[in-house]
Structure formats: structure tokens, C-alpha cells
């Protein structure tokens, strides 16, 4: 559905994403890594918000691979690469329904129609209602998005990404800042969505990652250091080192070394 080859992004001397080869099939793949590992940069490269220094991004809908490396964000979106945001990024003063409806409308040829009333196009509103039903926001459809609680906004964030029949869903921390009671709802949502669409999920909550993923990819300092089923990745010593900085009980000094080593490398590169 989606693949990258040698994808690299450099900001000045810093290599944020380093030669990443990645392929996503119809599965739920989690992308994890410590803060600053390059996960969001990787997302931005996929959607065209950032242009890669090197490498390619390709998207497949039915049979043929299509190169979208240099496509603008609105082009990748209309080809089916939909994303949600880590920091809630919705249309605050529109109703919840309109948030999804306008996203649904983007994938039709009718968005440029200026001579007909919007109520003429029932199908967008219908689809939007279906999506709201799926994420559990039906009762809030007529409220302004800014009045939603944080948890509900996170659901709306996913709902907007679901609009317009995506080919691939990129979910950037749908659980960010959500209280523990609501986490289960969003976890269920992720699982149900993954049955219909290929999902690439960025997530920090390890319970969710290990519980829902078919596959886990670990980024560290821009490079893939592990790729495999959840149990295998969890046992991988490199992953433990990346997350804990080599910390093991009783070996604090080693840990400090392991942490400062790669940092100084990054500074001189």
C-alpha cells in the first residue's frame, strides 16, 4: 500500500530521517521510538509536508505503484494518504459534522461548485454521519468542535482522517494527552479502523502498541533499528537500549556513556 526507499531528510547537519526502507501492507503497523527519533518527520515526508533530501515514497491503491515523493500535501491527501495530527488540528469554529463533511467533500469533484447550495449534496453529510457514528461522536454532531473535551477532539481528529475513503491511514499519537479512562475507547477505535484500512500508528503507550499491532517498527535517531512482530521487538536488546539508554539496574555509568555517545556523533555529523 505504501513503501519508501532510502528515505532521508537532513536539516542542516542533523539527519532526522536516515535511509529508511519501509513497506506497509494491509496491516496495523506501529512506529515507535524515543522523542526526537524522527517519527513525525517521517510522517511529514510521507504526506509531502516536507520534501525528502533523498529517497522515494510510493503509494499503491489497486495495482500500480505511484510515486508521490514530490507531491504536495493536498495531492497525497487526495490520492488517499490521510493523516491525523499529534496536536489536535481541527476546524475549531465549525460544527463536528461540518469538520468531517468538508473533509469528505474534498474527495469529490463537487468541491469547486459555487453556484449550488451545499445542502444539495446530501451524500457528504450522510457519509459524515456514518463516520461520526463509528467514532462515537453522533450526539455531538451539531456542537462546535472547540467545545469538545480533549478525548472527543482526539476522536474527531481520527474521524477527519477517515473521511473520503483513505488508502492508508497515518495516525500520529491518537492517544496523546488522553486520560486513562478514555484510552480504551480510542484503542477500540484504532482496532476497528485497522480492519478496514492499512494503518501506520505512532504511539507512546506500550500497552496499546504491544496489544493492537501486527508489526512494530522502531526508529532511533532517524534509522530503523528493529522491525517485526511485537513480542520479537520487545525482546530486542537494541530497542531496550534505545528506550532506556542502556540503563540496567546497577549500571548507571554505562547508561550515561551509551546516551552521550550517539549525541556527540550527531553533533559532529
Amino acid at each position, binding site marked *: 500500500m505504501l513503501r519508501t526507499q532510502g528515505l532521508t531528510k537532513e536539516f542542516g547537519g542533523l539527519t532526522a530521517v536516515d535511509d529508511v526502507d519501509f513497506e506497509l501492507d494491509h496491516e496495523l503497523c506501529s512506529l515507535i521510538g524515543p522523542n526526537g527519533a524522527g517519527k513525525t518527520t517521517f510522517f511529514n515526508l510521507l504526506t509531502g509536508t516536507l520534501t525528502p533530501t533523498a529517497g522515494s515514497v510510493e503509494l499503491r491503491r489497486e495495482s500500480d505503484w505511484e510515486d508521490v515523493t514530490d507531491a504536495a500535501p493536498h*495531492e497525497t491527501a487526495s490520492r488517499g494518504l490521510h493523516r491525523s495530527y499529534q496536536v489536535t*488540528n481541527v476546524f475549531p469554529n465549525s460544527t463536528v459534522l461540518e469538520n468531517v463533511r*468538508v473533509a469528505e467533500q*474534498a474527495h469529490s469533484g463537487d468541491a*469547486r461548485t*459555487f453556484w*449550488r447550495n451545499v*445542502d444539495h449534496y446530501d451524500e457528504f453529510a450522510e457519509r459524515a454521519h456514518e463516520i461520526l457514528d463509528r467514532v462515537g461522536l453522533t450526539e455531538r454532531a451539531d456542537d462546535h468542535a472547540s467545545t469538545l473535551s480533549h478525548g472527543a477532539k482526539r476522536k474527531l481528529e481520527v474521524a477527519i482522517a477517515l473521511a473520503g475513503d483513505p488508502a492508508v491511514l497515518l495516525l500520529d499519537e491518537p492517544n496523546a494527552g488522553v486520560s486513562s479512562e478514555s484510552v480504551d475507547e480510542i484503542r477500540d477505535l484504532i482496532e476497528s479502523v485497522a480492519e478496514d484500512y492499512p494503518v501506520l500508528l505512532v504511539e507512546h503507550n506500550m500497552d496499546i502498541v504491544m496489544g493492537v499491532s501486527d508489526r512494530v517498527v522502531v526508529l532511533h535517531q532517524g534509522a530503523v533499528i528493529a522491525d517485526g512482530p511485537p513480542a520479537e521487538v520487545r525482546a530486542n536488546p537494541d530497542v531496550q537500549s534505545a528506550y532506556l539508554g542502556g540503563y540496567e539496574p546497577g549500571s548507571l555509568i554505562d547508561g550515561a556513556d551509551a546516551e552521550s555517545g550517539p549525541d556527540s556523533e550527531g553533533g559532529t555529523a
Partner: protein
Amino acid sequence: MYDVLLNSPVSAEAQTLLPTVETMVGVLYFGLFAISFDFVSGYTGYLSFGHAVFYGTGAYTVILVANGKVPLLGPGTPFMLSLLVGGLLAVVLAILVGLVSFRLSGVYFAMITLGFAQVLYVFVRGWDYVANNPRDGPAVGPSHVEGFQIGVPGVDQLSLAIGVLTGDEVSLLGSTLSSTAVSYYMVGLVVLGCYFAMQRIIHSPFGRVLLAIRENEERAVAVGYNTYLYKLGAFAISGFFAAVAGGLFAGFRRSASPENSFYFLVTGDALLASIIGGFGTLAGPLYGRLFDETVREFLSPAGQGGGLLPYLRALLGQETLDAAVVGNETVGGLIDLLLNGHASLYVGIVFVLFVLYVPDGLLGTLRSRVGGTFAEAVPARIWGDDR
């Protein structure tokens, strides 16, 4: 209406408070310009500070066509057609300006459109093809002595001329409408048509995209909209209606100058009207302009439609006026000092108060009070919500 009130027992008060019919014609065409300004600025969030250029384009086109200075279009070209030509010219101009300007956003967009406008303003001021004295601007010359007709071109029965001196008078059911009153209704007809057209666009799928851009442009891009094209489209549409407004202005006044068409303060007046009336509500700017003009006329000196100053003078009588208040200053002198020719000062204060305390403007605030547009809220109040 106006005449009825002036002949009524409260005539002095009515003359004091109400603007004259001539002012009202100005409210209409300038209101349309303010609406077109609000169409792009209030709905996409991009402040078009050079909007006066489109107003000026419309105004100059009408006058130059009437003077036979536009190739292919003789002085006999119907007014409705030259309005349309002015509008289309403005569309071309808007696309050219927009292609460059929409690469920027926020204050930089406002500045670059202002820059384009000032370049054209200076250019028009020095272009001696348009008028003998381009600094004073063109006036309709002897090639087009009759009034500009609004209506169906070529059908005299369905057209009426506008203008204070050149307009038609109409006798209807025993009462005669003056040429100014006829102008009021005919200009109003065009303005109403343009308003409905813009209203339609705002409530179309295209209009919803504009709102999405104002709300959150980054997300609008992320769901698949090429916002650049949508903004450009909105800018062109807005330019068209601004030019129609300019054309009406020129058709009624029969002259235009760079100062009252191309100059950036003209845009400033539209911004003022938009903010007072309600930014992001289509009809708001018209009410804003009405409010603005009413306050100005209310505070203007005698002989310009009546206002507070002559009203107070008449009401208080000569004796009170001559009475000394502070030192040598009489009451009359004090009123003069406070009111004479200071309308702009007070309008400025009103503007500041609006920005501070009524940020949604007249219409925006009223709508949030009644909970929706009037067309929906008023019937709901009367017949209950369960229609």
C-alpha cells in the same frame, strides 16, 4: 419613507437622525464594496488591503467607456455591459495580483496587496490618457450626457437612469419619486442581486472550503484541498463585485478621482464598515457602512443633510446659545467647538469602542444573541421551535 418622516411631527428629529436619500445611495454602492471586501477577508481570513484597486477599476471603466476611450466599446455601450466589463477586468487583475500575493499569508499578504494597490494608484494619478488632469480623475464628458441606465439593456421600458441630475423621475400611484430616489432603488436592485449571488457562493461547497481555510488552512490542505486555487478563486470573485460597486459609484456620481477610488484609505473605509457591521457576516458590512454614514451625517455641519449641530442650534434658541459658560465661551461656541467638522474624530472613537467591546460587529453580536440568522431565529421565536 424619508419624505413621510420629514413631513411628520417629528420632522426635526427625523432630519437630525436619518441620512438623506443621496447618502443612502452611497451607503448602497459602498456597502457592496465593503461586502466584497468581507467576502475575501472575512471568509478566508486573508486581509485584502489593496481592494480599492478593484473598486477603482470598475469606476474608471464605466467613465472611460462613456467617454469613448475604451477600444471596441463606444460611448453608447449600455451601462450594465460596462459594469460587467469592469468586473471582468477586475477578475483578470485579481488573478494577476493573487498569483503573487497568495504565496504569502497574514500581515505579509496584506502588505503586498497594499503595495500593488499603491503602485496602481500612483500610475492612475499620472496616466493622462484617462483624463485631462489625471490627479483629479475623469468625469463623464459630452459624449454621454444622458444618465446611466440600470435594467435590461436595449429595452427602455425596463430601464431607469440613475444620477442626481441625469436620473429619471417616476410617477407612481400619484406620488413622484425624485431622481435620487429612483437611483436609490435601481442601485439597490443591483446591490441586492450581487448580495444574493455572493450569499449563494458562501453557502455552496466552494464557500465551505473558504470557511475551512479561515478556520485551519493547514488541515484544509491535509484533507486534500489545493487552498491556493480556492483563495485565488475567492479573490477573483471578490474583485468582480468590488468593480461592480465601483461602477455603480461612478455611474451615480458621474466622476471619480484617484483619491476616492484607488486610494488605500478607501479600503480602510471598507474595513471600518466590515468591523462595525460584523466581520465574516456577508450582510454585516452594509449595516456597518449605514451606521458609519449615519454617524458621520449626524455629526456633520449644517447643509449636509442635517445633524446634531443645526438641531441643537434650533432647539436651544439664540439666547441660550449666547449665554456664557466658561470664561468668554458661549454655549453656541462650545457646541461649535465640539461638533463642527469633527465627525471623523467621533467615528474613530466609535471604531475603537467597537473593536474593544463589540468584536463580532453589529450583525455578528445580534446573531449570537438570537442564536442564528434572523431568518431562522425570528420565526422560531414567534411560532416556537417545533415548526
